[in-house]
Each structure stands twice: as C-alpha cells, then as structure tokens.
C-alpha cells in the first residue's frame, strides 16, 4: 500500500502542525495549510489522497474550499472538521461530497479510522484513473 498523502487545513497553526506531526509519526505523508487559498494551491501542486479541512476559517470558507477541491479533483476525499454547534455545516458538507465530518477536539482513533477508509477509497480511485 502506497503512503497515504494527507493535507491538513486549519487556521489554528498550533493545532495543525501538532496533528501533522502525529500523523507523520504514524507513517503518513502530511502537509499543512492554514487557510483556504493555501489549501487549494497545495491540492493543485500535488493532489493528496485525503484533505482534512476545518470548516471555520478566515478567507475562503471551508465549504467553498471543499467545493473547489471536489470540482478540480473529484477523487480527493475530504474529511471535514467542525468546532461549531450545528451539524448543519457537516451535513451540508456531506451533500457537497465530503467523505465524513468530525467534531473538534478529535479522538485520534476516530480520525485514523476515517483517514484509512477515505484513503483506501482515494487510492483505489486514483489508481484506476
């Protein structure tokens, strides 16, 4: 199995770098972005298997970034993060093609499980293409 490429997008740099390090420790190729634009550029430069995307960000909103990512790279799977009280954004995200969504703070096991599921899907799709 190919190394899982993960792009972590969150405006909380402390959060995103720490999470990236933890995932790296678990054998994933992680990159980070702290806003929507960076994330889009990173996806363009090298499409990852999975994007972990915070919905609440300054600049391009999470949902907008999701829409653009899915538009350009339908095989890239997106897991949404939300710290907000409403499940609405999550459900809306699912409708826009997100793989799943998780609430902050994360349980690492939950994230790893979703990452692997999404990763398998993405790898299969990208391998076929």
């Amino acid at each position, binding site marked *: 199995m190919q190394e899982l490429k993960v792009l972590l997008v969150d405006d*909380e740099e*402390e*959060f995103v770098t*720490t*999470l990236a*390090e*933890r995932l790296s*420790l678990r054998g994933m190729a992680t990159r980070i972005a702290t806003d929507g634009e960076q994330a889009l550029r990173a996806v363009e430069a090298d499409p990852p298997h999975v994007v972990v995307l915070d919905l609440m960000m300054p600049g391009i909103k999470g949902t907008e970034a999701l829409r653009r990512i899915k538009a350009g790279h339908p095989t890239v799977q997106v897991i949404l993060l939300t*710290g*907000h*009280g*409403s*499940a*609405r954004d*999550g*459900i*809306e995200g*699912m409708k826009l093609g997100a793989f799943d*969504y998780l*609430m*902050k*703070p*994360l349980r*690492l096991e939950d994230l790893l499980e979703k990452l692997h599921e999404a990763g398998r899907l993405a790898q299969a799709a990208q391998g076929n293409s």
Partner: protein
Amino acid sequence: MSRLERFRSLFRTALDVPEEIAPERYQALRRKITLLLTTAAVVPLLILSVINYHQYRATLTREIVTPVRGLVNKTRHSFELFLAERASTVSLISQVYTPAELADERNLNRIFRAVKGEFPGFIDLGLIDENGVHASYVGPYNLKGKDYSSADWYQQTRVKGVYVSDVFMGFRRFPHIVIAVQRMTDDGHSWVLRATIDTGQFDRLIASMGLEPESDAFLVNTAGVLQTASRFYGAVLDQLPLPMPPMTYETATLETTDPAGRDVFITYTYFQHADFVLMAVKPRADIFKPWTTLRSDLILLFVTSVALILSVAFGLTDLLVRRMRASDERRIAAFVQMEHTQKLSSIGRLAAGVAHEINNPLAIINEKAGLASDLMELAKDFPERDRFRALVDAILRSVERCRSITHRLLGFSRRMDVNIEQLDVNDVLKETMSFLEQEALHRSITTSVSLDQAMPRIASDRGQLQQVFLNILNNAFAAVPDGGSVTLATWLRDPDTVGVSIKDNGKGMSDEVLRHIFEPFFTTKKTSGTGLGMFITYGIIRRLGGDIAVQSKEGAGTTVTVFLPVKAAPTATLGS
C-alpha cells in the same frame, strides 16, 4: 383643539384608568363605563318621565275638571230656572190680580192651591199692605197681621221690586226662602206679594248632580252661609268652613285644602240674580285616582327601564371588561412566553458560542498532549515514563471530559445527523420506557400508560425523540420515591400536533426551579446531574419544531408535556 378632539379628551378623562394590568384597572374600567352608560341612558329617560308626568297630570286635571264645571254650570242654571220660575209665578199673580182681590183670603186660597199644584215647593202666600202688615195670608201658619215694615227683606223688596231671600229657618224650623214682589196700585199705593218656598227642591237639584260619595255640592250665600246641607261642611245655615272663592260669574276651579286636611278641587259659580254660590268639592285623590294608576304605571315603566338599562350596562360592561382583561392577560402571557423563549435562545447561543471557542484551544491541548504521548512512547529510553504517561493520560481524560461537555452544549447527539422518518410516537415512547423497566421493577414504581392508538405517524427523528423521552423519564424516576407512579399519555391535540405527557407524583418543583428548568448547568441533582438534560431536551424539541411545557407543584408532582408537529418542521431536516 378641535371640537372633536375636545370631546375625545373628555372621554379620555372620564375613562381614565390605571394602565397597570391589575384588578384595580378593571374595577375602575367597569365602574366608569357602567356609570357612563347608565348616565347616558337614564338621564334622558328621567327627563322624559318628568315631562310626561307633568303633561299627563295637566291633561288629566283638565279632562276631569271640565265635566264637573259643566255639571256645576248646568245645575246653576237649574237653580236659576227654579228661582226665576217661582219669582215669575209670584210676579204673574201680582200682575193678574188686584190687591183687593188678593186681600180676599178666599181668592188667595184658590190661587195658592192652583200655584201649589203647578209648582211644587210653595209653602204659603201672603199680601202685605203698604204699611208692611200681612193683610191676607194662606198657609200653615197664622201670620196674618204680622208687621214686616221694619224687616230687612221688606225694605229690600221695596227698593229692588223683586226679592229672593237667603235660606232661613224662620218660624217653621225648616229651611225655606222668601220670594217677594212689590207692586204699585194705579193710585200710587205700594203693596207686596210674598211667597215662601220650601228649599227641599234645592236638595233635589243638588242630588240630581249625581256626585260620588267622596264629593260634595252645596249652595252658599255670598257671606259663606250654607244654603243647603252639605255632606262634609255642615248643615243648612252653618258657616262654610272654606274661604269664599273670588267673585266670578264664570264657572271656575281652584285647589285648596279643606279643614279635614283633604286636598280638594272646588268648582264654583256665582249666581247672577241671587246672592248664591254653587260649589262642588271633589277630593284631589279622588280626581287623581286614574292619575295615580297612570302614575304608578309610569313609575313602574321607569323603574323597569332603569333596571333594564342597569342590567344591560352592567352585563355589557362586565362582558367587555372581561374580554379586555382576558386579552390583556393573553398578551402578557404571550409576552412572557416570548421573553422566556428569547432568553432560552440567548442562553443557547451563548452556550454554543462559548463551547465553540473552547473547542479550538481544547483541540490544541488534545493534540499537544497526544503528541507528547506519542513521542514519549516512541522514545527508547524515557526517564519516568510511567509518571509522564499518567500525567498525559490525565490531561487527555480531562480534555475528553471537556469535550463531552462542549459537545452536549453544542447539542450534538451521538448520532450527529438529524434523521427524519415517519414514526409512531407511541412506539418510540414504549421503546424508551423499556430502558427503564428494570429500574421501575426494582423500585416498585407503577407506570401507567394511556396511549391514543388512533394517532397519525409523525415525521421526526427517532433517536432524538428517544433522547428527549429518556431525559424526561429519568427526571420523573428521579423525582418519585420508591413505590411512586409515572403516567404516560399521548393524544392528538389538533390535526397537526400530537401531545405526549409524562406525569409523576414525585416531589415536584418550586416556581423558582421551574423558571430555570431549561437553562444549561441548572441542576437540582447535586451530585449526579450535569444540568444539561432539560437544556438539551428543549433544544432538540425546538429543532424538531415542537414545544415543551412543564407544570409542577412542590410535593404534588410534575407533568411534562411535549407537543410535536405531525409534519416535519422545515428546520428539522437540517438540524438547528
């Protein structure tokens, strides 16, 4: 200020009541409106009644007095006719016969008998010569030779030619009058023919007036001496105890009070050719008997009308004020409800905002601690590894604890997505109840269920409803003592709403607790509660488009009623 405005401000002033929603406001309103309505209706009625009263009275007086006047007038004519006839008869005799013929008592006797036959009432007849001495006499008394030269009537006859006396008793001890006619012989000797008339005829004339027993009629002379017997005012020749009315030949009426204290109407007329006054006296009470009846009718009508107006005014005002009060109270209740809803929604927003803001730093702590743990585990040789592992685990456990609080505050259920399906509320309720069967059995809590089986299926979220019912049931079970009872009921409130009530006979809540029941972190379970159960319940029900109400009385138990829409609320499909 225009006239209209002035009028309006008058009304405003008249109906000035306290604005505060208190019993005084409605009492004042009721009092003032009633007073205004009553005054507006009763015053014109009163004025009308007073006018009517006086007009009726005037009309009635006229109508009743007029016939009496006619009668008095007619009777006077009869009297005058009677007197005129007698006077004419005497006058005729004096003209037909010479004094010489009349001086012969045989002739006089014959004439007397003829006259007496034609005209009842003649008592005697006599000739008085120029010296005033009775020259001849026919009658029951022996008056021949009696000298009248100094008698008043004789003098007056000599002056007037014809004389009609007042009534007097004379020698005969019954009332009579004298009619005397004076004549002159061709040779200038004066003589007088004198007749005495029985006034029993007068009584008959009076009787023919046909007066009621309460009324009286009599003849008096101008000096106020009764000429005929009266019913109430004395016998013949008594002084009339009433003042003499002013002299008039017209028939007139006046009101006065008689010595017996009765209010009377006196109808009277003066005779033209004699010093007599005919009087008819009617008691006013008698005259006004029909008037009294009419007056009591009028009073009855007035009183009835006023009673009717009052009852309508009171009834109408009562109705109006009641409605006003009910509407005020509804408005206040709606306002309070709205305030409550707004407060809860503000609290909800605040809680969600705080939770959200805390989630981000919490996530950082979580990851940092996680990374620390990762690094520690990966390091080959880490001093005091166990100690640090314990520390990191404690941090992670605390984060987990915070996480569960913020997630509950944010209204996340285990199943994040709202999943609307057609479901049977009764099934969901029974299902939820089954979770608590063991506890009920263990604590011998009676659960009775009264479910409306005919209820429609509703569009809602099974999981969330279960959570709601479980929260409420948990509270109910916590409130009742062992052996208590919990009653469940469902019903269709209206075609669009189903009701679910969960009632317990537990310890109940004070008003103060009830006021805060839906607020987060409000708990009465000092050790075991998070204070989020009812807050979350409220949030879920609002999201599902429903409503929740709690009634409680300390010591008597609590009833929680949940209303759910049959059709899914628009918000429910997407969560809050």
